[in-house]
């Protein structure tokens, strides 16, 4: 019997469960490698060549090259692992989060200052939606 995944109807959210961890194993381990300064330098010098050292799918590699974080997460990436990529780029968690929402960082930062994204309309996929999809 399939496991119950009640979180599949949360809008705009990918829960990093054991199935996603299996799909994203090499992507996340690549990201983890960027915790070493020497690997960061090698990655920055030639991103494509560095990615080709890992058993990632072409889709995963392209998502990294595009810095498309939502795509990386749909392909098994976990945000704490992917954080090593935007840290290597010298970018903050808030910047990366903003790109995932389609907002600019100033727009996103203002939303947070205004109290954050409201739970109203954002708890179930089938309810009227206010921003997240």
């Amino acid at each position: 019997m399939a496991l119950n995944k009640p979180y599949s109807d949360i809008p705009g959210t990918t829960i990093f469960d054991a199935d996603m961890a299996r799909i994203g194993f090499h992507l996340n381990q690549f990201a983890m490698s960027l915790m070493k300064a020497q690997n960061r330098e090698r990655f920055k010098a030639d991103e494509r060549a560095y990615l080709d050292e890992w058993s990632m799918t072409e889709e995963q590699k392209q998502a990294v090259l595009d810095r498309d974080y939502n795509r990386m997460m749909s392909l098994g990436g976990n945000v704490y692992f992917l954080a090593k990529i935007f840290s290597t780029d010298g970018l903050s968690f808030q910047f990366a989060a903003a790109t995932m929402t389609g907002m600019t960082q100033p727009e996103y930062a203002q939303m947070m200052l205004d109290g954050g994204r409201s739970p109203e309309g954002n708890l179930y996929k089938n309810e009227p939606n206010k921003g997240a999809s």
Partner: protein
Amino acid sequence: MAKITAGVTTSHVPAIGAALDNGKANEEYWKPVFAGYDYSKKWIAEQKPDVIILVYNDHASAFSLDLIPTFALGCGEKYKPADEGWGPRPVPDVYSHQELASHIAQSVITDDFDLTVVNTMDVDHGLTVPLSLMFGQTDAWPCKVIPLAVNVVLYPPPSGQRCYDLGKALRRAVESFDEDLNVQIWGTGGMSHQLQGPRAGLINKEFDNNFLDKIVSDPEALAKVPHINYVREAGSEGVELVMWLIMRGALNDKVTQKHRFYHVPASNTAVGHLILENK
């Protein structure tokens, strides 16, 4: 006899550490965050704990996908701040009370909780930001720290009930240690936040404030809340809050709330903080 005298909960937002380390603590954005810990710094200077059992989660720093322990108790001599991608935080190394840590491991495992023992690991912002918030910038942490890392990155994390019950086992362990020690237990992480996907930035003040109420007054009921409520209502990363239940389980049923603080935002996150003393 060693005794758990108090519990502290706090968020462990990495940007708080970065603000301190980069001299931004007096900026308008950060002032209200740090002001929420003014009382706490005075309180802990008076309390002078000998040892803190610090419950936190690793954020893909010490544990990659190679190995994901659900509960990992640090039994090593000391731990260095992790390089999380931009160099280690400029904070002191963390020294453990190794005899107590190994006593806890033996007691808790015998008590049916299958802990993983870790002797070598670096500790990331999940552990060092709470120390910075409570002790400020210092050349050496003023007490010993025993890390207890909980998996909340790979879903599912341990249940709220399991965390609460582990807290009770930790208390039995501490109270069966012969040396006279003033021990505190800290539960960190939360509160509501989501760092990923189109719903990033979710904050749920009602959920958070209810959690702050219930963890003091009715932790038994709170321990029964399933994961889906956390991830749906408090954001995918809000599920870190189960770690607070380990802290609460280790305290008396009745506690005195000495301090409560709540603030939005710190970067992407709602900051919550409690100080509870055993009655």
